[in-house]
């Protein structure tokens, strides 16, 4: 009897399997299962593909979420810029309406001082 190889490899396992179906006076075809079963290779490949698909799905979702983050960040920057512009306008408005500015305006300079018409002394 042939010494059994302790290191069973994939190809050797196929060979041993085949030997079981090719004994004398046995019709291998008649013993072949009618049911179609996926082999270990196919199973492994499918699992790998599924894992890859799941990974891809995860990456897609993460990228999508991060792109929203980027959009939100960009909007925040825009809001900040608009707020700064608003502040600038508010400052300009306050400066234009400041008492010094009003006092030095041409309209103010053309005003004539007046005194109360009815002053009764103590």
């Amino acid at each position, binding site marked *: 009897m042939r010494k059994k190889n302790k290191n069973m490899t994939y*190809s050797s396992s196929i060979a041993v399997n085949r030997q079981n179906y090719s004994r004398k006076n046995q019709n291998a075809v008649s013993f072949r299962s009618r049911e179609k079963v996926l082999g270990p290779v196919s199973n492994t490949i499918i699992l790998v593909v599924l894992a890859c698909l799941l990974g891809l799905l995860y990456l897609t979702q993460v990228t999508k979420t*991060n792109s929203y983050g980027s959009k939100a960040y960009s909007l925040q920057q825009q809001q900040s810029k608009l707020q700064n512009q608003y502040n600038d306008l508010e400052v300009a408005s306050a400066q234009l*309406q400041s008492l010094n500015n009003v006092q030095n305006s041409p309209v103010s300079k053309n005003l004539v001082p007046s005194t109360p018409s009815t002053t009764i002394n103590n």
Partner: protein
Amino acid sequence: MNNSDKRYDFKAVRNINIIYWIMLVVMGIFMIRLFYVQVIKYDFYKKSALSDQLQQSKIPATRGLIEAHQGNQIIPVVLNQQLFTLYADPSLVKNPQSASEKLVSIMGGSYDDILAKLKTPKTRYVVLAKKISQDQSDKIISLKIPGLGTVGQDYRVYPQQELASQILGFVNNDGQGTYGIEQALNDELAGTPGYLKAITDINGVPLAASKDNIEIAPTDGKNLVLTLDIAIQKQLEDIIKNAAVQEKSPLVSAVVMDVNSGAVKAMANYPTYNPSNYFDVTNPGVFNNAAISNAIEPGSIMKTLTAAAALDQNVIQDNTTYNDPAHWIIDGFNITNIEEDGGAGVKSVEDVLNLSLNTGATWMLMQMGGGEVNQKARQAWYGYMTNHFKLGSSTGIEQGYDSPGIVPKPNIPNQSGDQQDLNYANTSFGQGLTVTAVQMASALSSIVNGGKYYRPYLTDGVIDAQGNVAYNKPKLIDSNVVSSKTSNSMVSLLQQVVTKHYQSGFSYLNFPSNYVVGGKTGTAQIANPKGGYLENEYNGTYLGFVGGDKPQYAIAIFVTTPTVNGYAGSYAAQPIFGSIVHMLINESFVSPKGS
């Protein structure tokens, strides 16, 4: 199967086994390496990765704005504005000439200066310009000149320039409020900064999918509304500036306070400064709000308080007369009056205030002690000065450096009888103690409003994010400073003082009769640091009020060492009082009688 086929199979199996083992060894090496990298060196690589990806920073809170009244409107007096600092790394700027030309075309300035900075050797950082606008910053960044960058910074902006600068204070480079309300209410104005911790992409944009991101939003500072009316404030500043220049005074302070609430409507000092350029100030003394931090001997305006205390104790009446000897000997020292007061004779309480008699004030103090200046008189007067008029302690107004002033104790341990009576006689006419202008305005308010002492205050309210104003209520500290009878008597007596002064030739005290105006001058000697008092140097003070049916505003004025012909109180401080009252009446800040 023949032998060659068997050999072929054997060889194939052997080769597969060899490849299998090689792969196993390689996988093993990978796993060991991965174990080393991911487990043993976990901390090192995590730290290294995070240093590139993790952004941790404080999110600064926006400092609260400060606003004030302008009639019925509320307008900003302190705003925030983000401006930018333009910096460069000269070693990265390839063509400094071209860069300088482009920068000058955007932000102006000197081409030579910018070029010189861009050519600075042995440095990686030079500031090319400060406080450039966002528009200018955007244009410069869009040039994409290597080595140039801008960084934004919030600045406080003062649209009214110098107006109320000493009340406002400023924010220093460390973001700390310094002097004025910026210092006193720094915590309320500053708010609480937020915190950002986020994994970022290569551009520094936080990745939304990271579960470790932390973002705590900042709490912005509160917006404050001051009690100041900037129209009164502006004119008060103009009045005291003109007076300081004319009278050659190094420091003039004035306070206008609502007697019925303690709200400060205007408070000014001259000289002053522009808080936008606080770093250019050479004399840091101008940062002080002298009206609350500069405690001086007030002089004869103190007689107003002495008279009120004596009337309130019922030891004198408003029509009481006495025989004034024109001098008193107290602790061996002679207390006299100025020559113009007419010498010895029968005098009234009104004369004491109108002629500003030191002997009269001392006589009032004597009445508190049963006829002489003694421990009873000292205790009683001390009680009025500190407990009733709140002198000798800080007012609590929302300002940095709120001075308490000094009121001498009525009994100094181990010095019993050692000139204590003289010291106390001096306090009765405003020497030997120190007070601030705001303390005196608060004390007068309590005397003329019926006896209610309100804590002086500057913050009228707080504005929320929707712009709603939550107004502060006046804080009544003491409702029995003096009786209403004493209050009425004092209003009448001080009115008489103004009338008599007008009749004696101070024509500018010609106020319309449908207003009530009263006051008292003070000319104070100045303590010599070497002992005694300075010769020929005096401070002028004035304490008065104006109103319609009843007093509406208390006014305190301190003029330091003016150069005038005559007594500093009458010729330096009193004209300022006259101008302020005319301004308040003419511009309808005071409601006339019957309105």
